[in-house]
């Protein structure tokens, strides 16, 4: 996809400002996004002593910070938990989102737009960690992995529904009808046709949702 969509007459006059703005954006991205991340990487690889003495310059590269984190902070278990909670819970909330989004996108329900608004409101429900705790205790979901995963599914649902509804709407409805004619089952149709067509979605939106936009209720502390 080209950016130059001008006629030859105007192209010459545009080339110079375009080059300037391209350099500007390069500098902006470097200052805002590359340097901060490089700085933290630099700190991660230098000794605490060197960091305290001269925080701005790179020291000799050491890896002991990582082995220390691994042993002291139980990083191994925490990494496993992070992967478990983010991957499994994202997959589940994407699947749940798909089950809600498809009937909304295809208007298979009478109150489809009401249901959509209901799910949209889920993006900003008040954080309710204490009632959630009480509920999790009551349902024996507290302090165990399956429970924690289940509690992590819900926060990803609203964004998954919002994003998947939009993407399913762009898949032509004629496709459904052809598939129903062929006798395709509901779930096999979702998995064989809709999921491949909206493939980047599983993991994508809820994954970023899980890390970036999760509500407080999603992160009760004191779990394994």
């Amino acid at each position, binding site marked *: 996809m080209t950016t130059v969509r001008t006629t030859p007459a105007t192209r010459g006059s545009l080339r110079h400002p375009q080059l300037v703005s391209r350099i500007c954006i390069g500098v902006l991205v470097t200052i805002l996004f*590359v340097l901060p991340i490089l700085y933290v990487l630099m700190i991660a690889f230098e000794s605490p002593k060197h960091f305290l003495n001269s925080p701005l310059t790179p020291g000799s590269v050491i890896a002991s910070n990582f082995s220390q984190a691994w042993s002291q902070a139980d990083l191994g278990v925490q990494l496993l938990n992070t992967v478990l909670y983010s991957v499994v819970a994202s997959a589940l909330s994407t699947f749940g989102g798909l089950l809600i989004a498809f009937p909304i996108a295809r208007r298979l329900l009478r109150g489809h737009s009401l249901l959509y608004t209901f799910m949209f409101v889920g993006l900003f429900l008040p954080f309710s960690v204490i009632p959630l705790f009480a509920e999790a205790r009551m349902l024996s979901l507290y302090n165990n992995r399956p429970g924690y995963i289940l509690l992590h599914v819900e926060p990803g649902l609203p964004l998954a529904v919002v994003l998947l509804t939009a993407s399913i709407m762009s898949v032509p409805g004629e496709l459904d009808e052809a598939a129903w004619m062929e006798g395709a089952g509901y779930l096999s149709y979702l998995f064989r046709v809709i999921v491949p067509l*909206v493939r*980047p979605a599983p993991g994508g939106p809820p994954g970023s949702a899980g890390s970036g936009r999760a509500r407080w209720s999603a992160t009760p502390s004191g779990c394994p």
Partner: protein
Amino acid sequence: MEILLDVTQSPDGRLTGTARLPASRHALVFSGVMELVASVEELCGSSSPAAGPGGRAAPARARPRPARLLSQGSRLTMWAGLLVALAVYLLFGIVPMLGNVVMSFTDYTELPGAPVHNVGFSNYTAMGTSNAPGFTQAVVATLVFVVAVTVGQNVLALLFAHRLQATGRFAALGRVLVFLPIALGVTIVGLLWILIFNPQEGPAASFLHLFGLHSAFFGSSGWALPLVIFVQIWQNAGFSTLVFIGGLRAIDPQIYEAAGIDGIGAWRRLRRITFPLLAPSITANVLLAVVGAFTTYNLIYVLTQGQYGTQTLGMLAFNAAFGTAEANLGYGAAVSVALFLMTLIVALPLMGLLRLRERRLLG
């Protein structure tokens, strides 16, 4: 409308679909995410057209007409799936929220054995009075935060999207970099900027030293709120950028070609063509930024704990419930309900307004 779809049925009866998604106006939010995947693939040099961000379909197409499920079994499966997923949402989203509402009418303190009283609306009527300090300041801080973040995030994202929509590895690298903060998560993002704005010899402090200036950054009441706004924008601009890129790529290039033949200048093209046709992406981005800014408390907690004028309503709700020794969960719950209502009052009419604008611009 351009149909870029190809469905085949293999001999064993499997349906396979290969398609380039037409990026219709409804798909814009989603196409942002596709954009990221395509960028990574482009960076790795394995870009396939099937995974592309969407063809250049007509900018607006009619809504798909309602489809019908033919078989009874499918209908049953659909309802079962829908109800199970909704049950999770109700059980772990709506029910705790209602519990929270109930709690907001009590003086619950979480101290074991302490009696819990029904206090009626007194947690709500206390807001803004001297009994509950910081509420009025929090409302002001929330509004400043939401407006500044929404404007800043979208302007920056539009700027990035305009330049980074191009093909080539340079732009693809830019897209991945801009999106990186979302993937890092709140805690790491917060830690990163605390290190950079470390008042003692951090990079930002050293930079100010060059001009003979000093600042406590997150520890100064003048700087803390603008810096928290900046970090919130920094973290979320990438997501908005990808949504905008999806929108920009969905605009029919023939419109630009026609404008070029008519000799319309770059600025007017941006104002008269790009901006109106981008309306659906603007709707999605503005709403997500507003909702995100209203509900943020975790980033603020990591950066300042809500001190130095950065206590928004979300942060206040957390601090009121858990922050002090004399924690009052009832009042904290009331503040979070107030925040929810405030978000609702702003977000739903805004959604209607932006949809109306879309319809006016795109027909």
